[in-house]
């Protein structure tokens, strides 16, 4: 299911039957087959995102070397690796946030359902709408109320909605993000009045409101307590048939719990970061083929 070219060391991920590894705790996901299917994966919405030989620079400093990775609809892809190996950079390349850094440059292609998002004529705002992002630090708009936060993306992308439609959208997105019950009586309070975990789920709801095909998450739980983390992991599991999810995490258990596919990034002494190994999560955590992967997963470095 996941194509895997060029980056060398990874084994061909064979669709081996579940070998009872750490991934067994995923909650049941709702059946969405009734909803209009997409070409590649008939049972999942969301889009296929392919990174093809992506390299990245900050000024003269090369931080990513020919990363190729395919993120399939209906699946959660986890990016793991030690600090500074370029996971965030890679993630930001996937929705064109990388180019906001003045000295940043990149090579390669990123294809969203087959179309290169960096091709001339591709509208960057539309690309970013289709590929949403949740940041490490929760960043709701503090001047807006909770429901305004959810619909902020509509205003930003010029989507006008009627009032009742908006209310319905707010409820739907907050429910999907697992926040509705906690905030339904205080929708007009400012977004900054929520706790950190609630703010992060608000940010997820806000991202969902513009109906993205892909959702990128950069260490979404690193500032949160275990309970909030669990809520967000549940949210991710429920969302994965709706949007393609890519998540960066430093927490191996989390990667094992939420993802179906996994890529291990590593930047060795003085060289740019690259993908050392990619495989489905069970293989990755059960029988990694590269000793460095095994060392990292078992906490022997990084």
């Amino acid at each position, binding site marked *: 299911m996941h194509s895997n070219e060029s980056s060398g060391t990874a084994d061909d991920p064979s669709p081996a039957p579940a070998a009872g590894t750490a991934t067994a705790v995923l909650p049941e996901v709702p059946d969405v087959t009734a909803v209009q299917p997409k070409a590649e994966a008939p049972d999942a919405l969301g889009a296929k995102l392919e990174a093809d030989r992506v390299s990245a620079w900050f000024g003269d400093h090369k931080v990513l070397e020919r990363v190729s990775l395919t993120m399939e609809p209906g699946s959660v892809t986890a990016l793991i690796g030690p600090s500074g190996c370029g996971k965030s950079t890679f993630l930001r390349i996937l929705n064109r*946030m990388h180019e*906001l850094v003045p000295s940043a440059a990149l090579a390669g292609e990123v294809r969203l359902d087959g179309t290169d998002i960096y091709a001339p004529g591709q509208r960057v705002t539309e690309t970013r709408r289709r590929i949403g992002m949740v*940041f490490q630090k929760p*960043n709701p*708009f503090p*001047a807006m109320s909770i429901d305004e936060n959810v619909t902020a*993306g509509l205003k930003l*992308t010029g989507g006008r909605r009627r009032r009742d439609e908006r209310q319905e959208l707010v409820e739907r997105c907050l429910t999907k993000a697992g926040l509705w019950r906690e905030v339904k009586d205080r929708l007009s309070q400012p977004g900054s009045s929520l706790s950190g975990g609630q703010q992060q789920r608000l940010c997820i709801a806000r*991202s969902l409101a513009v109906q993205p095909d892909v959702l990128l998450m950069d260490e979404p739980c690193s500032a949160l307590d275990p309970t909030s983390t669990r809520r967000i992991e549940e949210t991710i599991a429920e969302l994965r048939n709706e949007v393609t999810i890519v998540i960066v995490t430093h927490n191996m258990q989390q990667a094992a719990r939420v993802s179906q596919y996994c890529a291990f990034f590593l930047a060795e002494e003085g060289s740019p970061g690259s993908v050392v190994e990619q495989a489905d999560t069970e293989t990755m955590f059960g029988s990694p083929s590269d000793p460095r992967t095994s060392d990292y997963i078992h906490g022997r470095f990084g």
Partner: protein
Amino acid sequence: MTNAKPVGTATVDVDTPRAIDPGLPVADRVFRGGARAVGLLVLAIMASIGVFMFSESGIAFDEFGWSFFTEHRWALETNQLGVLSLLVGTVTVAAVAIAIAVPFALTTALFITEYAPLRARRTLIALVDLMAAVPSVVYGLVGLILFQPYLADIARWIHDFFGWIAILDVPGADPDTTNWNNTAHQYTSSAFIAGVAVALMVMPVCAAVMREVFSQAPAGEREAALALGGTRWGVIRSVVLPFGRSGIVGGTMLGLGRALGETIAIALIIVPAFDVKLRILENGTITIASQIILRFGESSPLQLSALMFAGLVLFVFTLIVNTIAAAVVSRSRSGAATEI
């Protein structure tokens, strides 16, 4: 251990806060003392200015009493002196200046922080700061000699189309006249033209404050707006402006403070006129500061005292404006960042 209560063995000794020696190091103590002294000195200077002006205006106050505030004339022969027209003129010119300067300052600041490429940004900041460093007499001369002919044309045009609004009317002037040369003087030396000159010197000050605050809008929120598919204008609307509200208020108030006190540029441009009027396009107006500079050299002791009194009014008025501004600014999120 006597206890009347049936609660049992309640202890008699109550907790009392113990004394803690803050143990401030010598260096900190010296610095604290120094800082305190300087702070008090500033207050003392402010107070002594107020006291000085108050005592100097005593003669005028004895003479005119509260009618000084309701008298609009400044008649030297009959010594009928009052601050009303001066105050109205001061506010009018400042209002014109702010109305023109703030939109320009706002767009300049937004362009610098949100749109200009990195290298152009530095150049633009330097240019705007340079604009703030030009002496006000230069703006006065530029306004008088360079701009006035064009501004008079613009004033006539405004009069022609918007003359039905009371403040934009110029009684006795015909905007459609064919004999423009005989009519032009009715539009010169007005509050409008003085306001434009003042706007030129106020704009960079406003822009600097606004730019400073806008550039501190949190990067996380900017990225959030962009990642949702927002344009830069979207970022401005949803992040920069809400965050920068205090900067806008602060910059405006700082500009207003300067505009209220501006002296020489206005004195160069206007023709003194002591009737209380809000018609900004009409020839002639007067402000407190320009009246002081125009009259100071040739005044009797009573008139001098009256000028001091007018100065005191301006002093108090500016103080009030700034206090209100500080209150507004400190209540908002970015308030900590602005000093006004």
